[in-house]
């Protein structure tokens, strides 16, 4: 006998902490990731603000040199391994990939839960260096040999933590690839997948095929420290530069693990707010694969001053420039998507516009350091610090916040205060650029990075930059506060489709039921963004 019950959403099905931390529901796992990632982001960001305080004036402001070195290492490790690499794939990928494909979960739900646990264990290992041994590592997030082998700080644990977190990343990638291959709803062939799915697909391949290399590299550092003799030690015939090769074979492709999902969410939001189909669907889809592919072969651009041979410098530099082309294709197609749209300017769209602007600055500064001559001057200066904050934070970070505002009503079934969200955005935008633009300038002047103290001529830009960090911090606190306040807001619930979007997540309830759909998902006639043949969905 079957009884007809109203659909309950995935928050209501079971209660209690254990129903969350042992849940195999991809939506709950996504939220577990979201909360943990946000906590780590705020922790890492606080370290960033502390660094800026130290750099406000030359000389000692608030901490010792050794502490500063540990702080920027911890900041880099947290931001890279705990925040930005998992950010969009593990949160929004987990939540929306099955829904966008029209299925009820990822291919291996229990593996998915395991990935989160591995991530948490790795994170705890990283944080444990604060308490045990001789303090957190002071090597920079790159763990370059031979310093990482010589220093007395707790490098072994930090490196093992990164190794463990790498596993989580591999398993997520594996899960997504199989899901995309096996669980698409009938009728959704590869060329009818939403672009976010495409970008996750490309990302997953990088996670799968690049992460093992850093895993084994980090293990070699551990072996070196534990056995007391070195694989990268020149006195026994080893080569410290080889460590750098292995590290960047992973870590360059990893920057596209950070960037591609951001490209994906941007490609979702633009059609929704322009109320028209995406311009150049195939070009955007395939350029993701092209970026992933070319991205494997350009790691050497981080080592232009390490004494590589001329031939290697030539090849790595020219390939670095090639990767700009598929990225250019994306940017042009995005802008063209706004052409003759019917544009609804909402908070998520503001984040998208800021993303495009800031990512361009980040990308162009990437070209500057990709050229051999200018990189000789700019390598390991604040220009590089400016470059990567522009791409990672100004790009991916802003896309992450945009996606949070975009899917907020779907995930929680409520809407945040839009006015406050706009104010927060403005603060964020101004703060961000005040914080990071001076870094580009001071880098051109020749200030090296990882400097606890600096020469007096670098004072002014550093001061402006620190002021910017305060504006940015205010903006972020306002944004997070507004989103949290949204949970408790009274007022009308949002319906299925507050933005009038077209992809499958907007056809189901907000929040979605446990099974994801309360009726068969319907595909638009021609491709995922065919607004002209939008399926009619009643509340």
């Amino acid at each position, binding site marked *: 006998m*079957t*009884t*007809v*019950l109203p*659909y*309950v959403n995935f928050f209501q*099905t079971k209660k209690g902490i254990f129903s969350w931390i042992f849940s195999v529901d991809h939506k709950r796992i996504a939220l577990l990731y979201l909360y943990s990632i946000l906590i780590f982001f705020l922790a890492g960001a606080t370290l960033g603000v502390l660094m800026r305080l130290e750099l406000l004036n030359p000389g000692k402001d608030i901490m010792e040199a050794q502490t500063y070195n540990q702080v920027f290492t911890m900041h880099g490790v947290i931001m890279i391994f705990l925040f930005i690499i998992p950010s969009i794939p593990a949160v929004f990928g987990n939540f929306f990939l*099955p829904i966008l*494909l*029209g*299925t*009820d*979960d*990822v*291919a*291996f*739900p229990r*593996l998915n839960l395991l990935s989160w646990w591995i991530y948490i264990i790795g994170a705890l290992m990283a944080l444990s260096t604060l308490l045990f041994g001789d303090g957190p590592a002071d090597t920079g997030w790159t763990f370059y040999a031979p310093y990482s082998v010589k220093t007395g700080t707790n490098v072994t644990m930090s490196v093992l933590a990164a190794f463990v977190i790498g596993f989580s990343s*591999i398993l997520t990638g*594996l*899960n997504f*690839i*199989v*899901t995309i*291959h*096996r*669980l*698409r*709803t*009938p009728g959704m062939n590869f060329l009818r997948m939403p672009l976010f799915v495409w970008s996750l697909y490309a990302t997953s391949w990088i996670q*799968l*095929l690049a*992460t*093992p*290399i850093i*895993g*084994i*590299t980090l293990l*070699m550092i551990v*072996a070196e420290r534990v*056995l*007391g*003799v070195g*694989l990268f030690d020149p*006195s*026994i*015939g*080893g*080569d410290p530069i*080889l460590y750098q*090769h*292995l590290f960047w*074979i992973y870590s360059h492709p990893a920057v596209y693990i950070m960037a591609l999902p951001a490209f994906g969410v941007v490609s979702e939001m633009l059609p929704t707010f322009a109320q028209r189909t995406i311009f150049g669907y195939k070009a955007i889809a395939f350029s993701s694969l092209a970026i992933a592919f070319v991205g494997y072969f350009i790691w050497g651009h981080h080592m232009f001053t390490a004494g590589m041979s001329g031939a290697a410098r030539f090849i790595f530099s020219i390939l670095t420039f090639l990767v700009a082309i598929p990225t250019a294709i994306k940017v042009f197609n995005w802008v063209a998507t706004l052409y003759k749209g019917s544009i609804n300017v909402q908070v998520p769209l503001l984040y998208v516009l800021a993303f495009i602007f800031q990512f361009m600055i980040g990308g162009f500064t990437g070209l500057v350091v990709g050229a051999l001559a200018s990189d000789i001057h700019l390598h390991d200066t604040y220009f590089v610090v400016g470059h990567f904050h522009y791409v990672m934070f100004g790009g991916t970070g802003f896309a992450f916040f945009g996606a949070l505002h975009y899917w907020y009503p779907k995930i929680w079934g409520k809407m945040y205060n839009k006015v406050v969200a706009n104010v927060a955005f403005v603060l964020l935008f101004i703060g961000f650029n005040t914080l990071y633009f001076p870094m580009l300038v001071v880098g051109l002047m020749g200030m090296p990075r990882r400097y606890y103290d600096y020469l007096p001529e670098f004072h002014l830009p550093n001061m402006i930059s620190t002021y910017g960090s305060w504006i940015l911090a205010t903006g972020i606190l306002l944004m997070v506060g507004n989103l949290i306040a949204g949970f408790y807001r009274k007022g009308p619930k949002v319906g299925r489709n507050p933005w009038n979007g077209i992809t499958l997540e907007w056809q189901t309830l907000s929040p979605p*039921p*446990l*099974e994801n*759909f*309360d*009726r*068969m998902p319907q595909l638009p006639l021609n491709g995922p963004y065919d607004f002209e043949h939008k399926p009619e969905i009643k509340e």
Partner: protein
Amino acid sequence: MEHTTGFVLPNSGHNRDDESSRMGMWLFLFTELLLFGGLFIVYMVYRMLNHEAFLLSSFELNVTMGTVNTVVLLVSSMTVAMSITAVQRGNNALSAKLLAITLGLSLVFLVIKYFEWSAKIHHGLFPGMDLYKALPKGESLFFFLYFIMTGLHALHIIIGAVLMGVTIYRTKKGLINSDNYTLTENTGLYWHLVDLIWIYLFPLFYLIH
């Protein structure tokens, strides 16, 4: 409190899908290949930088033991492949027996490896030991790599053996049958990977005379 009306989604992540499992396993094998790949790159570079030293050190290794181990692994690869044939044909008892033989062979491999390692360690060739420290430039790298790479490989053998044990247990319990033998297949795939890696390790360490 589950909803029970309406419709069933055509694809579900909670359904059994053997193709998914196999694809997942293959993808996992790719990551394993690249994990060892990193070490092979290190090997290649150091061999380019210390050519003579690598040739000299290679003579320290026992070709006979290496060859025997190669044969052991190849045979075990066959028995595990046969056990899949057996289970596909519905012969569970034979399948379990073949898996048991594979497990036995993996132990043989480990025992031989143990003798090889302990001979080296006895000589003090393990990284950090006396003879190791006295080795000329380059030769010490060879032994470092030898221990890391065969060590990681042996770890994989152990994991494979445990997996084999689980598979035997489940086969005997009848949880695996001609309609549902993904576990046997995936164990087999993993075991073949271990074999594949050894196929390269063997000439690179033992045979570079």
